[in-house]
C-alpha cells in the first residue's frame, strides 16, 4: 500500500515538475503597432489625353499601408470660381493606372499608382468657369481626414486626334481600300452575288398586284432620313416603284417622317420617269400619315384593311408597330415582304411575312435589284468584311483560350483591346 502511494506521489511530482518546465512565462502584451501614416505622394495632374479639353487625370503613388476602409476624395477648384468641390470619392484599393479604360497603345498604366480621370463637366456643368483648375486629394478614414496632398494645377486642352480609336481608323481605312478595289474590279468584270429569295419575290408580288388590280403598300417604317435602314428603304422603293410603273400597277407609300416623304417623292417620281411612265405618277402616291408611332400604325392598318392590297412591303426601321402592321397585312391576304435592321423586330416579321430581309440584306437590296456593277461591288465588300470578322473571331478565340490556359493576361488584354471600341 505504502509502495503504491509512493509511486503515485512520484508520478504526480514528475507531472507537476514537467508542467512547470513546460509552462512558458507569458510575455508581456505587445503594444499594437501604430498604423503607417497615410501619405499621398507624387500627386500630379495632367490634361486627359484624347478628349475635348474638359477632363484631367490625377496620378499619385499607391500606398500599400492603406487600410481597406480608407477612402480617397478628389477635390477640384477653379481659379476663376474659387472654393473646393468634391469631384470623386473612392476606396483606396480602386482606380489604379490599370483601371483607366484606354488601350495599350494609348495608355501605359501601372498598378503601382492611382490614376483618376476627373470629368470637369460633371462638377461644373457644360460651361467650365475657367481654363486653369487646381486639384487636391485627401485620404479619409471613418470620415476623418488622415492625409491631404498639396494642390496641383492643370490647364485642360482639347486634343485633335483620338489615338485610342486608332484600331477603328485602321479598320475603316482597310474597308475603304477593299471598297475601292471591289468597285474598280466590278468595272472590269462582273461579280457573282448570291440569290436573295426575298428580293426575287418582289417581281412576283408586283405581278400579282397587277393581275388582281389591287394596290401595293410600301411602308418605309418610322425611321428618320439619318437612319441607314430608311436610306436603304428609299433605294428599294426606287426599284419597286420602277417595276410598278412598268406594270402600270398602283403603289401607296404612307409616311411617318415628312423628310422621308419628301425624299421618297423624288425617288418615286424619278422611277416613273425612268420607266417611261411620267403620266402615271401621282402626287398622292406618297402621303404623310402621322409622326406618332401608334397613330401611324392605326392609320396604315386601316388602309390595309379597307383596300386589301395584293402586296405589302415593310422596309426600314420598325419598332412595336412591326407586328401591328404585318399581322393586319397577313390577315388581308397580301403577299408580304419585310426587311429591317432592328434585330428584335425580326422574329415578328419572320412569323407574319412571306419573306424577310435580315439587316444587311436590306442594305444590299437596292444594289441587288438595280444590278448596277458599281453598286453590286459593295455587296462584295460586305462579304469580305464578314470573312474578316469570322477569321478574327476564330483566331481571337484561340488566343483568348491559350492566354487563359497559360496565364498570359497581358497578351489576352492586348488582343481584346484590338477589337474593342473606345
Amino acid at each position, binding site marked *: 500500500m505504502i509502495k503504491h502511494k509512493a509511486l503515485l506521489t512520484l508520478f504526480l511530482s514528475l507531472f507537476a515538475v514537467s508542467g512547470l518546465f513546460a509552462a512558458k512565462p507569458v510575455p508581456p502584451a505587445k503594444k499594437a503597432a501604430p498604423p503607417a501614416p497615410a501619405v499621398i505622394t507624387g500627386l500630379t495632374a495632367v490634361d486627359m489625353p484624347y478628349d475635348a*479639353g474638359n477632363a484631367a487625370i490625377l496620378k499619385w503613388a499607391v500606398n500599400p499601408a492603406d487600410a481597406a476602409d480608407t477612402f480617397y476624395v478628389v477635390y477640384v477648384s477653379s481659379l476663376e470660381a474659387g472654393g473646393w468641390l468634391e469631384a470623386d470619392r473612392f476606396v483606396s484599393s480602386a482606380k489604379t493606372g490599370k483601371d483607366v479604360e484606354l488601350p495599350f497603345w494609348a495608355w501605359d498604366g501601372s498598378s503601382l499608382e492611382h490614376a483618376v480621370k476627373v470629368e470637369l463637366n460633371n462638377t461644373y456643368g457644360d460651361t467650365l468657369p475657367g481654363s486653369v483648375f487646381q486639384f487636391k486629394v485627401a485620404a479619409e478614414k471613418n470620415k476623418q481626414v488622415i492625409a491631404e496632398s498639396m494642390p496641383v494645377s492643370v490647364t485642360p486642352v482639347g486634343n485633335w486626334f483620338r489615338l485610342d480609336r486608332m484600331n477603328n481608323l485602321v479598320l475603316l481605312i482597310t474597308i475603304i481600300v477593299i471598297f475601292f478595289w471591289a468597285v474598280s474590279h466590278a468595272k472590269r468584270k462582273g461579280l457573282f452575288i448570291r440569290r436573295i429569295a426575298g428580293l426575287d419575290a418582289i417581281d412576283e408580288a408586283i405581278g400579282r398586284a397587277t393581275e388582281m388590280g389591287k394596290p401595293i403598300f410600301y411602308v418605309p417604317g418610322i425611321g428618320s432620313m439619318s437612319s441607314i435602314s430608311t436610306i436603304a428603304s428609299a433605294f428599294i422603293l426606287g426599284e419597286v416603284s420602277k417595276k410598278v410603273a412598268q406594270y402600270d400597277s398602283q403603289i401607296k407609300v404612307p409616311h411617318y417622317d415628312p423628310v422621308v416623304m419628301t425624299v421618297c417623292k423624288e*425617288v418615286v417620281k424619278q422611277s416613273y*420617269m425612268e420607266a417611261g411612265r411620267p403620266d402615271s405618277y401621282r402626287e398622292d402616291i406618297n402621303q404623310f400619315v402621322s409622326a406618332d408611332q401608334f397613330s401611324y400604325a392605326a392609320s396604315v392598318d386601316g388602309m390595309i384593311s379597307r383596300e386589301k392590297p395584293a402586296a405589302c412591303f415593310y422596309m426600314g426601321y420598325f419598332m412595336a408597330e412591326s407586328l*401591328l402592321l404585318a399581322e393586319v397585312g397577313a390577315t388581308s391576304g397580301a403577299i408580304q415582304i419585310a426587311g429591317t435592321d432592328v434585330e428584335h423586330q425580326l422574329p415578328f416579321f419572320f412569323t407574319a411575312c412571306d419573306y424577310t430581309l435580315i439587316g444587311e440584306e436590306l442594305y444590299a437590296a437596292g444594289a441587288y435589284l438595280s444590278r448596277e456593277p458599281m453598286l453590286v461591288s*459593295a455587296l462584295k465588300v460586305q462579304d469580305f468584311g464578314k470573312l474578316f470578322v469570322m477569321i478574327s473571331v476564330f483566331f481571337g478565340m484561340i488566343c483568348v483560350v491559350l492566354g487563359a490556359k497559360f496565364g498570359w493576361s497581358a497578351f489576352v488584354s492586348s488582343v481584346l483591346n484590338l477589337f474593342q471600341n473606345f
Partner: protein
Amino acid sequence: MKLIKKQIPLAIVFITGVLTLISYYVPHKVSVDYIETMNKWENIVVAFAFLLGLISLFFSHYHKITRKADGWGYSIFVFIGFLAMVVPSYTSHGKQMVDGMLTPLGWSYKYIYTALSGTMFAVLAFYIVSTAYRSFRIKSAQAFVLFVAAFILILGKVPLGQIIWDYALGWTGQGVSAVIEWIMQVPAVAGKRGIMIGISIGAIVTSLKIIFGIEKQYMGKD
C-alpha cells in the same frame, strides 16, 4: 443644270459625310461644335418638313372627302382629331397642368391621345397570340427548332409549366429555368450577334457608297 442637280448635291454629301466621319476621330471642341450645329440644322429642316407633311395630310384627306372616296368618313376624323388637340393646346398656352389642375390640353392628352395610344398598344397582345399560333405551324426544320425553343420558354415562364417539366423531365437533373437561361444566353445571343455584325458591316458599306457618290439613287439618276 447637271451641276446644280447632281454635282453640287454630291459635293455637299461628300464634304458633310467626310467631316462627320472625321469628327469621330477628332475630340476637339471644334468637332463637337460642328456636330451640334449639324444637329440643330437637322432639327430646323425637320420642322419645315413637318409643315410640308401636314399640308400633304390635309390635301390628301380633303380630296378624299370632296371626291367621296371609299372610307371618306374616316378622313373627317383627321380634321376633328387635329382640332381636338390643336385648339386646347392654343388655349392652354401649351401647358398640360396649371396649379395642379389639368388644362384642356392636359385633358385632351390624357383622355384622348394617351387612351388611344394605349388601346393601340394593347391590340399588340392579341396580335402576338395570333402570330405565335402561326409560327407554331411546323412547316420546316427551322420552324421546328423555333417551336421547340418557344415551347420551352413558354413552359418555363408559367408555374404550371414548371410543374409539368419537373414531372416529365425532372429525371434529367436540369431545371427548366437552367434550360431557358442557356437558350437565351447561348444560341439566342450567338444569332443576335451574327445579325449585328452583318448589320454593322452593311451600314459602313452603305455609308461609304453614299459618301463617295456611288449610290445616288436618292437624288435620281442621270
